[in-house]
């Protein structure tokens, strides 16, 4: 029996679902191994019978909280894909403001019809089996995790900083080029994608388990950032500090 897989989206740009739909080469092979029973971007039929739930998007309304709890109860394995569902991601930027203000900025006069709560990762509401951060989700990593689960192996998600991969890619360090970078505290697994392509790391894979944030902050200061710049830099993807279930 092929495992039944359902995709669900919460507060997100849907970039992660589109990224999964981009698996042109792999999609047919994947369908040999899995049965997809729910994927809003791909199909209209729905089913509530599934083994693996794959979630993108952050939790940001009371209805989201109820819905994710229901999904967790039905799924034996729950995987979050992308920065939004795994870390809270850019959605958490709003948490710095009162929720009423956020509602009125977004919905104006109609604000009264909507509900919102501080945005949070899925793991802040229900236990998550595997979190695959990155904005958007890393296709290669997603496929490795799917294969590992099918083989009954424990998927490996790196727990070391992007710098290690950046060095292996033989990039010049952007600090040496007069710019700044969150690579020293950000979880690797992307092969230092952004540095390799000429930019710097924004931290979209979240922090490693034991980041030396104080030392990284000093490095950023030495390279000309103010305390405020640094807070803003860290906030883009890792504003959620409320912990997890």
């Amino acid at each position, binding site marked *: 029996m092929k495992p039944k897989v359902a995709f669900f989206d919460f507060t997100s740009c849907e970039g992660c679902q589109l990224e999964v739909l981009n698996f042109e080469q*792999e999609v047919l*092979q*994947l369908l*040999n*191994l899995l049965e997809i029973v729910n994927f809003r971007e791909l199909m209209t039929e729905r089913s509530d019978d599934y083994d693996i739930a794959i979630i993108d998007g952050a939790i940001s309304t009371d209805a989201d909280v109820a819905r994710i709890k229901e999904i967790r109860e039905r799924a034996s394995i729950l995987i979050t894909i992308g920065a939004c569902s795994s870390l809270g991601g850019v959605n958490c930027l709003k948490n710095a403001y009162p929720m009423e203000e956020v509602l009125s900025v977004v919905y104006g006069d109609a604000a009264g019809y909507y509900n919102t709560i501080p945005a949070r990762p899925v793991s802040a509401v229900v236990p998550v089996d595997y979190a695959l951060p990155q904005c958007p989700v890393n296709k290669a990593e997603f*496929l*490795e995790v799917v*294969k590992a689960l*099918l*083989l009954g192996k424990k998927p*490996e998600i790196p*727990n*070391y*900083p992007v*710098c*290690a991969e*950046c*060095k*292996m890619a*033989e*990039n*010049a*360090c952007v*600090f*040496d*080029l007069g710019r700044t970078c969150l*690579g*020293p*505290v950000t979880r690797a697994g992307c092969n230092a994608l952004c540095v390799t392509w000429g930019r710097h790391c924004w931290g979209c894979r979240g922090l*490693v*388990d*034991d980041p*030396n944030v*104080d*030392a*990284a902050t*000093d*490095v950023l200061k030495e390279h000309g950032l103010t305390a405020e710049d640094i807070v803003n830099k860290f906030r883009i993807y890792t504003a959620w500090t409320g912990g997890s279930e």
Partner: protein
Amino acid sequence: MEDKVISKADFSSMVDRLIQEGEYDSIEGVKTKDGKYFFGSLTNSGELCLDYDVTLLPPKKYFLPQRETVITFRQGERPAPEPVAEASSVVLIGVHPYDLKAMELCEAVYSAPPADPNLMIRKSKTVVIGVDCLNPNPQSFSASMGFATTESGYDLMLTDIGDSYVVSVGTDRGADLLARYGRAADATATNLARRDEVREMSLGRYEKSLSMPADEIPAILNETWDSRVFAEKSEVCLSCGSCVMVCPTCVCFDVEDTVALSLDSGERYRKWDSCMLTDFAKVATGENFREDRESRFRHRMHRKGKYLLERYDKPGCVGCGRCGLACLVDIALPADTYNLLKEAS
């Protein structure tokens, strides 16, 4: 062996001929990007920089690639694992003496039983043309390690004496390559005197040095296990592993399996690992033998200054300075720590 001399123009022609004739699968040399240097494939001699200070990664990557498949297998009752050891023929141009010494260490490590064929096969198919380092980078202390120059580890060794290179011939293979591709003459006494002079001058350009003879390092490490130096320096360590990833003498790798999406075949590969990463010494039960930054930092200093030397009779650090250049918090250079330990002991 003998010493030759070749004009710079003739050396460039030699490189171009090597590229054009295609006898070797690739001609690799030092190139530049973002104001830094790296070893890469040459398409013409104009790309080659021989007056560089240091490359981002050492040429070790040609012998121990960042990621390499070591076994392929099929799933099922007969998994049929096949070892993979492939190598193409390469001429590698512009390796500095410290990197040659580092490769000798890697070879000693990988040829010790159980010998690892992959590195040795690649080594045997690579002709190495070294070049003396006359402009050391600001973190280099390779002169203190005795590796400003080397008498071994190369097929040919160049020294820039102005308009031409003195070419020290290290092996028959080197002599043969030079005879077939280069227009070299016998070096004169004046050429050799000039070579000794430029080498001597380069020694004055090292900004970092050991405050003790290199052979005292193991004894100093033996006496200072509990020194506060380790705790103080490592407090700001980012556990980023950069110091290890750029090191020419680091030899550790991790092994992983991956399967195709069909789930019926796969490969086992190895990739560089680093003892400065938090989970390096974590084992299956979840126990981590070097859980804190201090113990990882101390381990690396002992590994570079003592463990490898005791086991293989070759220094575990050649003083290239790459770790010092890569470390954002400026704690990684072994010479700095050894000097502090010496002061404290």
